[in-house]
């Protein structure tokens, strides 16, 4: 049975629903891969992840990303990276980070230098 939706874009796919558990059967090209978009506000600043676009190629991803993420505010540059090319950690391995918050000695806030700086300043001003 073809999947029917209120969205004409879904109907145009004419995708078959096999069962309730299984997703629709899509032909190659029916479903475009996603591309991660990185936005840079000004030259020299870092590129930050801002979201994704769906596209059949990286050129198209760039053409679409420009309007999704560069149409408001300041933009200097964009990167697009196919999501499949991003190596992601498994959430099952999240436990490797579990003890990190308790290692406060790695936090620079643990170093008490302000007293020394203030003393140095006072000495040099006087």
């Amino acid at each position, binding site marked *: 049975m073809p999947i029917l939706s209120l969205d004409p874009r879904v109907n145009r796919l004419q995708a078959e629903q096999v069962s309730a558990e299984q997703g629709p059967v899509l032909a190659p090209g029916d479903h*475009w891969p996603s591309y991660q978009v990185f936005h840079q506000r000004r030259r020299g600043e870092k590129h930050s992840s801002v979201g994704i676009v*769906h596209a059949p190629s990286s050129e*198209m991803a760039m053409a*679409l990303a420009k309007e*999704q993420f560069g149409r408001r505010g300041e933009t200097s540059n964009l990167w697009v990276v196919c999501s499949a090319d991003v190596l992601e950690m498994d959430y099952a391995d999240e436990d490797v980070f579990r003890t990190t918050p308790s290692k406060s000695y790695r936090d620079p806030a643990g170093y008490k230098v302000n007293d020394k700086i203030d003393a140095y300043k006072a000495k040099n001003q006087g």
Partner: protein
Amino acid sequence: MPTMSNSQPFPSGPLARYLLQIADDQLIMGHRNSEWTGLGPILEEDIAFSSVAQDQVGHALAFYEYLQAECGADHPDQTAFNRPENQMLCNGLVEQPIGDYAFSLVRHWCYDHAVRLRYESLSGIPNQTLQSIAVKLRGEVKYHTFHADTWMKSLLEGSEESRLRMLAAIKEVWPLALGMFESWVGEEDWLVELAGNGQGWYPGEAALRLQWQEQALRSLQTWGVDVEKLGLEKMEPVLGGRQGYHTVHLAPLLEEMTAVFRLDPQAEW
């Protein structure tokens, strides 16, 4: 009845007329392209194409404002929405209904490359204000042509179906696209005058058409289109728009576009 404005419909002088043609093209093209908003093939493209349409209406405004400030034209709202059909100077290509997405994409590609050439030429004008308008708008058109090129390449090099649909659209659009470069009243004298003043920035419609056609055909060939087989080089342009004679599609468009404006033509927006 709307109150007719006291200002003359055409601001005088060939430069003003030329700019009015560009502005009218942008206004009508932007309006047409905006008809895709909410209906685009995919969400991201819907947003991108709508944004291009918005840019185009903005370009029309930039020139209408210049015409008001420097050439004695009426307020941009009046110039855009209060002229009868036979005083509009847009070309036949931009008037056409949106058709299918292949038609709209091919039109977008043909149109924005022509605009690119006009802005490149206009940025050489010895007029500081117009030069900076042209330089500013060129950046937006650079994106428009990148967007159009990406779709053209993608669909012409895509599946059998996408290729055939694009080829059919190219054949349909071509004669209308050639009409973008219709010679206009006063053009010839102006070219002589410009040459006399040592101004080479405006090459004239025939030269722009040659330049456009050469670049367009070259791109189509790199995307594997047999331009000879399509018969593009033998096609004749659809003319009339620059003289105020329009295709049957403009009148209903103006009717719809100006409906709200006509409720109260003197309203402040």
